């Protein structure tokens, strides 16, 4: 009977990450299809809140409290905690989010347990074995892959499905740390919150993004206003980030983040391949660009040819008129 282990990632405030609830929902449907079991694992200094929140989505969650994690980078001790819980279950399939912490944990866990990794899944199914869909070569191809043996680790991209809680929450089983750590701990000597840090763009349902055409940091004010009006997050191209107009955390594309929002509103973005690979799977793509021949004309649903400031301000007025 295959077992699907969901690694729950706690947010900084101790709550469970939204992505983990999506992964848990996927794991439940896999368990049902495979006649198996879906189990959550949360490893943290104080896992209680995240574990009980994850139990809203999974019938059983194991909370590993390891006080020694406090003041240290999370992924390595968490991977050791997960490896200890997996223990003898060499067949166990481990599912986790494809965010920065998830990928770190996946790499460490792969080395600790000898499991293979399939990263950045865009869909996942059961056909007598796990079948994992991923994009390859910047989205030019979609591949289906599997593990050659039992057991494996899959990281899953945000926004692939909508998380659905159970009718009745599952149970939380408390455990202590497994034993002496074998891998070195890395101390966190300072934590800095940057003013104006925006909502994480990977999880945003609506993204308003600006490129070189925005022209400067002041231009991003309009991008921000539109994002606020639409209830979305602000994204950017590498050119805008490299120019220092907006932080790297908001960069979308080959060297930035890959996003799959319901709506991608691109202002002054030409749609070069390096940016396209980060947003081409958005459900609806709307572009405003002066150049009707920009590459984005080939994959946007709607291209408004014009000045992004004029169209953007007119759009703000129109949206406010609707809501007002």
């Amino acid at each position: 009977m295959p077992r699907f282990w969901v690694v729950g990632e706690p947010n900084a405030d101790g709550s469970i990450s939204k992505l983990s609830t999506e992964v848990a929902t996927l794991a439940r449907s896999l368990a049902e299809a495979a006649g198996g079991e879906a189990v959550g694992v949360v490893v943290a200094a104080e896992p209680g809140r995240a574990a009980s929140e994850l139990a809203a989505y999974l019938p059983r969650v194991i909370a590993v409290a390891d006080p020694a994690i406090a003041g240290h980078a999370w992924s390595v001790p968490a991977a050791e905690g997960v490896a200890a819980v997996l223990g003898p279950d060499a067949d166990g399939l481990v599912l986790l989010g494809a965010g920065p912490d998830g990928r770190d944990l996946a790499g460490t866990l792969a080395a600790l347990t000898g499991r293979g990794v399939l990263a950045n899944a865009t869909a996942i199914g059961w056909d007598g074995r796990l079948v994992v869909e991923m994009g390859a070569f910047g989205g030019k191809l979609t591949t289906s892959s599997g593990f050659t043996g039992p057991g494996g680790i899959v990281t899953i991209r945000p926004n692939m499905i909508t998380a659905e809680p159970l009718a009745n929450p599952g149970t939380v089983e408390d455990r202590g740390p497994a034993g002496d750590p074998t891998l070195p701990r890395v101390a966190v000597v300072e934590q800095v919150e940057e003013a104006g840090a925006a909502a994480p763009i990977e999880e945003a349902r609506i993204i308003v993004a600006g490129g070189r055409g925005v022209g400067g940091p002041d231009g991003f004010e309009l991008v921000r206003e539109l994002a606020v009006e639409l209830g979305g997050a602000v994204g950017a191209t590498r050119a805008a980030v490299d120019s220092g107009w907006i932080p790297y955390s908001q960069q979308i594309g080959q060297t930035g983040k890959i996003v799959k929002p319901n709506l991608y509103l691109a202002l002054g973005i030409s749609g070069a391949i390096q940016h396209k690979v980060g947003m081409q799977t958005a459900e609806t793509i709307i572009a405003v660009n002066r150049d009707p021949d920009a590459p984005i004309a080939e994959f946007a649903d709607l291209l408004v040819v014009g000045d992004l400031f004029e169209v953007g301000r007119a759009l703000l007025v129109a949206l406010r008129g609707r809501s007002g």
Partner: protein
Amino acid sequence: MHIVVLTKPVPDPAAAAERLGSDLRLDRAASPTVVNGNDEYALEAALKLVEAHGGEVTLLTMAPPNASDTMRKALAMGATRGVLVTDPALAGSCVRSTDEVLAAALRELTFDLVFSGFDTSDGNAGVVGAATAARLGLPYLSNAAKIEPDPDTGRVRVRRITPTGYDVLEAPMPALVVCTQVLGEPRYPSLKGIMSARSKEIVSRSLADLGLDGAGVGGAAATTEVLDSRKPPARGETTVVRGSAEEGAAEIVALLASRRLI
């Protein structure tokens, strides 16, 4: 300061000619090869640190034999030498083989820091750095926006990007650091750099040289396999609107409303 930079030759994304062969593995002949873009940021960060502290930068690559051509481009940026782990048995390696082989190659080298790029443009997994660090028992510091080694204390500080700002991490060296683009644009090789790269050393190592058994790594021992591949569904037609800003905005609002996005 000795820094090893993990570099991977990848199909040039700009050429857009990548494809899988009939064996569902990357068809390496179909596309020109370049140094993975994110590895260039790691190399740039290493070169700057060596310029400040003295020392050497070694490239470590696992790839087919002709990868030495691509490695020359990274040597032209200023790396001191290259180590190319190459062996016919490595074809079709999965993540697990890759980190096992890189770890074995690193055991033969002396270093204060190992740098890896954020991910590769062909595989995108971004997990080999963490796995390699775990195999070697090295402290692992990821998503670096700033790297400050202190040769006097033997410790390294890294600014790790978080969703809301950054954490400052500290660990003893040797350590493995995953680099990001925030560390700074890679330099272009100078003519002098290109000339001197021709005579720089690239040491070739086989699996046997590293004491590894070909049966335990490479395609024969791959933990994952591609089952099939297909083109993703094409997006629909693009509606192009020209006219006044107000007309354009009205079209946007109409589409948003029809798709229940507002």
